[in-house]
């Protein structure tokens, strides 16, 4: 790999340093902030002990950006923010300035560029999502496309602050779920065990690796056409797709049998209740590019019910815990079915071990 004409010896510096990336007012008040307010959607003001204030304007981005887009963001930062900007962990861009008078012009300019200003407080923020067909080697769908379709319908929820509490969404293109636990998550769900591509497998697969990867020991060595190969015990297989990550010949993706599931109630903050994992509330939704209307529709139903019924500060999972799952299904029009009963490793802990019952 080493090239003879190489002149530069790599510096293993790790993360880029941050000091020069901080606005001078931030540097001055570093670690000495007193409180914040949200004067309007998309705008935060943080007040320091020194009395200084810094204004933040937050805008949505497509996340799958281009150098053109980034340069435009830099133009804004140069014009209004002394050349500083940052991104949030949810792919929103933030412009920080001590100058209150820059806020409104900046908002106008961002919106005219097509970037919605919002994503603060009790809103639906941008979707944390993944690679999909654009880049990943194991996806069953395209995350960016699902996200774009979904956010088109939730545009005003991003730009407003009308929800009971923050709503975090995520979308993932396989069950691994690089997108993460969220208030509402849209995740590919395989429904059919992998078909083994024996020819392909003979060429590429480290057999023991694929066998070891299966969490339920459903993969066994076999011989096909005189070549060592693998077979899947379809009774045992739980369609997790782990083997496909280890060996591309374990073909689990399928245009019809790779579906979508909708999950709710994931919460990662420690505020009030402990962090909680999400629960499945719909599955068998078709993988329907380019606009995935069935997915968008299900997400919409959940948000309508939550917006209507949630009390201030209740995250989606907390709202459901109060009203109960029975009412959640009633009010969203989704259907509980037997596949939603846990059957995995700690399934017993999800059984209703009480006479508490709702009619």
């Amino acid at each position, binding site marked *: 790999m080493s090239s003879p004409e190489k*002149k530069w010896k790599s510096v293993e510096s790790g993360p880029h340093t941050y000091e020069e990336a901080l606005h001078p007012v931030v540097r001055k008040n570093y670690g000495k902030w007193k409180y914040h307010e949200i004067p309007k959607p998309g705008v935060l003001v943080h007040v320091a002990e020194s009395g200084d204030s810094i204004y933040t304007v937050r805008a949505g981005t497509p996340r799958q950006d281009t150098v*053109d887009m980034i340069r435009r963001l830099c133009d804004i930062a140069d014009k209004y923010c002394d050349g500083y900007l940052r991104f949030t962990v949810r792919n929103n*861009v933030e412009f920080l300035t001590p100058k209150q008078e820059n806020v409104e012009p900046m908002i106008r300019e961002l919106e005219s560029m097509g970037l919605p200003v919002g994503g603060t407080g009790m809103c639906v923020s941008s979707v944390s999502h993944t690679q999909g067909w654009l880049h990943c080697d194991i996806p069953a769908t395209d995350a960016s496309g699902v996200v774009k379709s979904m956010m088109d319908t939730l545009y005003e929820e991003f730009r407003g602050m009308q929800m009971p509490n923050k709503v975090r969404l995520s979308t993932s293109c396989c069950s691994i779920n690089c997108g993460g636990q969220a208030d509402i998550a849209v995740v590919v769900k395989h429904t059919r065990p992998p078909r083994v591509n024996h020819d392909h497998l003979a060429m590429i697969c480290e057999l023991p690796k694929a066998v070891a990867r299966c969490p339920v020991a459903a993969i066994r060595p076999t011989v096909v056409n005189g070549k060592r190969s693998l077979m899947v015990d379809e009774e045992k297989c739980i369609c997790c797709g782990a083997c496909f990550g280890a060996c591309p010949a374990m073909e689990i993706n399928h245009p019809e049998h790779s579906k979508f599931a909708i999950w709710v109630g994931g919460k*990662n903050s420690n505020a*009030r209740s402990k962090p909680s994992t999400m629960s499945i509330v719909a599955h068998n939704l078709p993988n329907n590019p380019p606009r995935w209307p069935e997915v968008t529709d299900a997400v919409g139903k959940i948000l309508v019910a939550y917006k209507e019924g949630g009390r201030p500060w209740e995250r989606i999972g907390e709202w459901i815990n109060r009203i109960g799952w029975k009412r959640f299904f009633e009010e969203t029009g989704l259907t509980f079915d037997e596949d939603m009963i846990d059957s995995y490793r700690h399934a017993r802990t999800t059984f209703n071990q009480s006479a508490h019952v709702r009619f």
Partner: protein
Amino acid sequence: MDGAEGAASQEVHHCNECGAHSGEKFLNPTPMLDELEKGPWPSFISGFKELAERTKKPMLRGVMDQLEYSYNTKMGYWKGGLVTVDGYGAGIITRYSMIKDKIPEAAEFHTMRIQPAPGLHYNTAMLRELCDIWEKYGSGLIALHGQTGDIMLQGIEQDKVQACFDELNQAGWDLGGAGAGMRTAVSCIGPGRCENACYDNLKLHLHALKHFVGVLHRPEWNYKLKFKFSGCPNDCTNSIMRSDLAVIGTWRDAIQVDRDEVKAWIEKKGVDALVNQVINHCPTKAISLKDGEMVIETRDCVRCMHCLNAMPKALSPGKDRGISLLMGGKNTLKVGVNMGSLIIPFMKMESEEDIEAFIEQIEAIIDWWDDSGLDHERIGETIERVGLKQFIEGIGLEADINMVTRPRDNPYFKAKY
């Protein structure tokens, strides 16, 4: 891959030879993708098109064609490989097209993961330089940011990787993680803007990731290991769910209360709001209403942040600040999602010595995992399999009731006898 062909509703027209003829569209038709230009949310497709039409990079046309083909066939067509830079073993996600006979322009489409500054802070000079280098060698597509926290420079061919990296590296950028080693970390904005930050997470992030930079570049563990640094238990980096090592700011003493601001809050919002939106949401009933005001019983408080969130002017974290370390977070693969769990309830994080002590502790943890873990087993899985008790003994910690929600409900253990 059965089914894929049948599901293809149309074949994409390919124009492999055509370059950039003025006036004519550079890109092939992508009717499916074009649907994603509709609607108010900013469209990544419009961005891609704009870039492609301006730069006329064939790779971009190929990628659009392949994506359109995926939208039609509902299947993906990338496969992995191994591309690195001199002396590194990770950091480039290698992608070769499985249909390069159909769409040769996208034969290679590798991603370079680049570690941004902690807190995802930039100045425009840094960012413009990054864009310029990237446009020179790569496609010009950038994801800001990947879920693990990397700048993802998406779309480069193998033969340009080293040169691109060298130039980036001279400008102060380094590759991020991939494979079975340390990964790129994320920090919330922390002391950079947030009044809740209980330690300098940007500084710790920088120190820790520099310390582990070797194994980030040359992975040699059982599996990946991710750090995330949140300034307080609001956990704006989702560290508990998404990282093996979640470093979360907290405090030990009483919440700081500004009585006047409490009064002002109540005057403005009313006692009902105090009860319904603050007191009733405290998970441990640590707050009570007394003479129309609130009183917090410190020993009942579990530092959940809620009351501070609800009354940011009136309440702030205590003064005796530091971190909690939670471990074992990961998402769904194999064992199902595992939220990180509390391992070290409290460590001070103020001086250089504190940082060193922290890094030593992490080294001990990794040593244990190196000895005890299996291949492709995240540290949370190892702890669950081997036992939390065995783990804390292994790294020399005392048992603390904060580590569990309750003592065990079964007698199935062998105590010393």
